[in-house]
């Protein structure tokens, strides 16, 4: 039998990208600012969102899609602060993809939401490659993970519009070379902004300010900064 080569040269995740583009069109039509929050398990993503809902919930209508392999524990935690929470269980899947987000959107009324945060499955590698239709990708590290995690996960550092370093309040107790961590980020993404937070000590004002200033509604919600 005759065999031959058929050139393709297309992005491996082209179909996911097409769905992400559809999601993005839905978000834009609804005027919703969307953040994809990526970090390892235990970095403090859900705690950050709890604090965010507490701090900004009176000023912004915030929805959350939260991905976990199993359980509704994170969804339940967040549901104490907002009714616009959708828990997605991915089973053995190590990331959310655009199709899962599209289905999760069926459970949200986007016209009631100004800001949608998608808390991805705890993982520093797999979620980075799968676009969801977000406006911004945010990477979250924490002091307790060690100072080498940015260097070891370059795709997240390069892809992120914003990077967070949580658990700064543990710095006196844990060996962590902060200048080196900052330099690793600068090496690969000199445009990335790094915000240093201590979520459980309620030290996350730079994140709240970033959310407000980057929201498409920042003019509509300009009073938020003044009231807080």
């Amino acid at each position: 039998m005759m065999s031959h080569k058929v050139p393709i040269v297309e992005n491996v995740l082209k179909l996911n990208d097409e769905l992400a583009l559809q999601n993005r069109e839905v978000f834009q039509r609804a005027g919703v600012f969307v953040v994809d929050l990526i970090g390892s398990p235990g970095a403090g993503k859900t705690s950050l969102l709890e604090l965010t809902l507490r701090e900004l919930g009176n000023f912004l209508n915030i929805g959350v899609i939260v991905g976990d392999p199993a359980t509704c524990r994170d969804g339940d935690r967040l549901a104490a602060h907002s009714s616009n929470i959708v828990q997605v269980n991915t089973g053995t899947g190590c990331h959310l993809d655009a199709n899962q987000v599209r289905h999760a959107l069926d459970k949200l009324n986007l016209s009631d939401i100004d800001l949608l945060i998608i808390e991805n499955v705890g993982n520093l590698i797999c979620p980075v490659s799968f676009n969801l239709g977000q406006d911004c990708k945010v990477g979250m590290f924490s002091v307790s993970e060690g100072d080498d995690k940015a260097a070891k996960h370059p795709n997240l550092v390069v892809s992120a519009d914003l990077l967070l370093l949580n658990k700064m309040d543990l710095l006196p107790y844990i060996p962590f070379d902060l200048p080196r961590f900052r330099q690793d980020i600068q090496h690969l993404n000199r445009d990335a902004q790094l915000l240093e937070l201590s979520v459980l000590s309620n030290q996350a004002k730079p994140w709240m300010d970033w959310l407000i200033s980057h929201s498409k509604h920042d003019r509509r919600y300009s009073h938020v900064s003044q009231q807080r």
Partner: protein
Amino acid sequence: MHEVSIAESLADLIRRHLPPHQHLIGITVRIGPIHGVVPESLEMAWNVVSEKEGWSGSQLHVITPPWRLRCGACGRCWEPVTVDEHCTCGSPHADIMAGDEFVLESIDVESAVNCPQ
């Protein structure tokens, strides 16, 4: 284990491109190291996914291009051993020029019908 998702994504893409009455016998992908894909794991995942698709025995060829950085200060380009390597000029800034590829390059097919001699 995002290799399974990647293998499934490859199958979705190939279904779009596989010419009628052709049998898939191989695929070639170019995946840069930034994606953290382990070729051996992708091969295992591809074996499972391709069998489900009726493409049993189709060979997966993974091309892993090396990292290539360009210094943000002096413009020098080099292939670092690891991506956190700094330029010899001492600048801490670099741009990734290669190593982030994620492409289905080609598929190898053969006619499912014998050609007349």
